[in-house]
């Protein structure tokens, strides 16, 4: 689309916040922080990291975007975990913002969706803030050496899986699993804003 003489008035938050997001090539921050999983274990990113790489995905129960992509997140997480990529889904939302984001609901949702990977509580949104994560869902893929190689959204059509043309996260995971370079390293993460504790 042509956009001649565009004057943009940006109401700060979106672009300012994105400047603090984890950069491609970085290691996972706060990776030793223990987070309570739906099966009662306390797990850190370091502990779940896989030999081929690691997928960290911030998500939650209430957000319509997270719900729309949930089955696909489960499928990707479950299958790539089998192929040597460690997977962890992190809920950094304060449940006082949406009761549906509480622990009991997380337990139910993980079971309903058949998550074979941990779904954990980021109490205080500590890990989310360190990652600069802003949305649910928002995916971070690290390679075998722990370097960030993909950051962003799941695919290009949340509403309709059958209409997806660009499988951004799936392609990144496949590249990492097969030791190849990721062709699209960053995409805009689409979803609801993370409801940080203390905000």
């Amino acid at each position, binding site marked *: *689309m042509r*956009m*001649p*003489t*565009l*004057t*943009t*008035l*940006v*109401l*700060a*938050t*979106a*672009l300012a916040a*994105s400047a603090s997001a984890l950069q491609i090539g970085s290691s996972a921050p706060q990776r030793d922080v223990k987070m309570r999983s739906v099966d009662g274990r306390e797990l850190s990113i370091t502990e779940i990291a896989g030999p081929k790489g690691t997928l960290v995905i911030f998500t939650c129960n209430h*957000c*319509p975007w997270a719900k*729309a992509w949930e089955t696909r997140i489960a499928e990707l997480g479950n299958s790539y975990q089998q192929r040597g990529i460690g997977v962890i889904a992190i809920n950094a939302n304060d449940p006082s913002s949406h009761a549906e984001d509480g622990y009991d609901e997380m337990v139910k949702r993980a079971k309903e969706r058949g998550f074979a990977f941990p779904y954990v509580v980021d109490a205080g949104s500590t890990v989310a803030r360190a990652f600069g994560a802003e949305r649910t869902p928002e995916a971070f893929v690290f390679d075998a050496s722990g370097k960030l190689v993909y950051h962003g*959204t799941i695919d*290009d*059509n*949340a*509403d*309709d899986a059958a*209409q997806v*043309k*660009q499988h951004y996260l799936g392609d990144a995971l496949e590249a990492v699993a097969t030791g190849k370079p990721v062709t699209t390293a960053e*995409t*805009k993460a*689409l979803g*609801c*804003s993370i409801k940080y504790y203390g905000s």
Partner: protein
Amino acid sequence: MQILRRSALAIALTAASAALPSIAAAAPAPNPGGELVPATASQVLEAVRAPGARAVLVNVWATWCLPCRAEMPDLLRLRRTYADRGLRVILVSGDFSSDAPDAAAFLHEQGVDFPTYIKKGGDMEFINAFDPQWSGTLPASFIYDGQGHLRFALHGAGSYEQFEEKVRSVLE
């Protein structure tokens, strides 16, 4: 404002509701003239460029976005105040198709009696067609002049005064 043919509007609305037979509480019928029409960004931009307006404000909102709902009365008031000076307001719901009844119900409550849109097609295409700088965060408002050139992009909520100032600067 005829954006799409009436028959296409009827088909679109019927298709949207026929896809959801199990919804227990159906949305009330739209206010007369208040159809919710599935549209791609290209189709919305055609509506932006349709002749007859001196300024066009496109607002992208969703039922799950509280600031979007909060600013809707101001947008509708702006529309009423400046319609006779050539302001066209185009509302586009970013709700998923399964939530179209909720979107329609909200518009009904707000007294919307003109056609509005609900997004269809790929997400990135939609976002980038309006503004490649836009992260997709909602609400978002895009203000065009009468020739369809984008003059202002607001990523986030706006106050009545902010919208009015930008619209007036385009109208003048």
